[in-house]
């Protein structure tokens, strides 16, 4: 690792610190027909704040993740309950002595509803990051799961990132996808990201249009299984969000039953 060439200038907002291991968790239960957050376990730097009856914000209470950090988040959405997870700010992935690893496991039971839409992950120069999401859904779980990756801060080449996303419905695979950033084989390829600086996708279940829809840099893709993937590429984070939100609206128009959440 050539730290001198890849490490960005010292960041006053994110002073250096030692690598951490953290394991945070959120769980809901159905209590008299209403959702109750029975577990809300923060573990800095993964700090959780309840901001509404069924809404939790992730609040970063330290820099990072930094290389070497191992962060885990477990979400358990019980049958018939509702949970929304957002974040206050984007995640800036910074370099450090090793690879940073973020693992998110989510279980969404029968009739439950989860909206997971944090702010984007920005890959700073020199970072080495792995993210792993495992989403286990019951057949009639309602989910909106959005992920956005930004290739470096303004004018910066990104470090390396490997993300893997696996969603299953009642044990059957719905969507499996990996993204690699910072690999010369894929970074500037017209087959993978083209000239985009950001990649994002939203998985929605219980929403599946008859056919695909297309706009500039965005496709609404009905999956083989019971769900839709909105897939977008964009030159910046603002346009990425606009494209994903357009696609989410298109997908949600196909969702019958009038559910307003997520």
């Amino acid at each position: 690792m050539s730290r001198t060439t890849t490490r960005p200038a010292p960041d006053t907002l994110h002073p250096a610190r030692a690598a951490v291991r953290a394991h945070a968790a959120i769980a809901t239960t159905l209590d008299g027909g209403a959702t109750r957050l029975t577990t809300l376990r923060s573990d800095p730097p993964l700090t959780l704040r309840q901001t509404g009856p069924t809404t939790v914000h992730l609040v970063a209470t330290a820099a990072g993740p930094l290389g070497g950090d191992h962060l885990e988040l477990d979400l358990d959405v019980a049958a018939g309950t509702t949970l929304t997870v957002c974040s206050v700010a984007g995640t800036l992935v910074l370099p450090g002595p090793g690879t940073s690893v973020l693992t998110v496991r989510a279980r969404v039971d029968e009739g439950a509803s989860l909206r997971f839409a944090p702010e984007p992950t920005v890959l700073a120069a020199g970072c080495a990051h792995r993210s792993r999401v495992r989403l286990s859904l019951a057949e009639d779980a309602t989910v909106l799961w959005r992920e956005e990756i930004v290739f470096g801060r303004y004018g910066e080449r990104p470090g390396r990132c490997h993300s893997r996303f696996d969603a299953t419905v009642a044990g059957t695979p719905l969507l499996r996808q990996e993204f690699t950033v910072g690999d010369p084989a894929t970074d500037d390829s017209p087959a993978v990201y083209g000239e985009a600086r950001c990649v994002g996708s939203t998985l929605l279940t219980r929403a599946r249009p008859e056919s695909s829809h297309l706009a500039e840099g965005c496709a609404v893709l009905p999956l083989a299984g019971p769900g839709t993937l909105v897939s977008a590429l964009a030159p910046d984070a603002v346009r990425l969000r606009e494209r994903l939100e357009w696609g989410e609206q298109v997908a949600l128009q196909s969702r019958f039953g009038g559910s307003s959440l997520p």
Partner: protein
Amino acid sequence: MHGPSQGDMAMLLLADSRLPAGGHAHSGGAEEAVRVGAITGPEDLARFLRGRLATAGLVSAALAAAACEIGSSVEEGSREVARWTRLDAEADARTSSPAQREASRTQGRLLVRTTRRIWPSPALDSLAAAVPDGAHHPVALGAAAAAAGCAPHQAALAAAYTSVTAPATAAVRLLGLDPVTVHRLLADLAPALNDAAHAACASLIDSVVGQENHHDWSALPAHAAPALDLLAEQHLRTEVRLFVS
């Protein structure tokens, strides 16, 4: 039993674009990339091919190797419905674009139809019965490779190879590129192609759970190529097309 040399010969036949299984009708996204100006010459094409190999090519190689592994263990008269449909579902979960799923199944159906006549075998019969509407192309390719006496590594090589040769030859036709220059690009990809086949086989070894022949295919590579998905969907909306996909 088939010897290793028979596997080599079969791999060449399966990877050959002259195999009468309709592969020539598909450009792997290259036609649309040319139309929108994302591929204009050999340099863009080289980057397109490298990215395609590292994503769709690697995933196809792994699925083909897995299918070859299944196909090699199918007994005469056995049905194997569950194993084939599970692997085919893994291919579905890795293909989010409906246009690409359709193109993949069309090619898979034609490949099974052709190769059943060339290499009649329980592997291809059971796949055709388990996925009657047409298995995904890499699954069909792996089953055909098993029927022809290939090992999983050879199936992976054939899948990785066809994932770049189809768009390369399409680009020659569409842009009037010098075919020798484009074959040079393909030759330059040889190390990456070998790496993809090795990675595919390594993922196969990792997928073994418990006793031999018990596999959990969920961890096979799943590298996405969002630009290919967009190109595939746009291509369907383009009126004048030389290639199906």
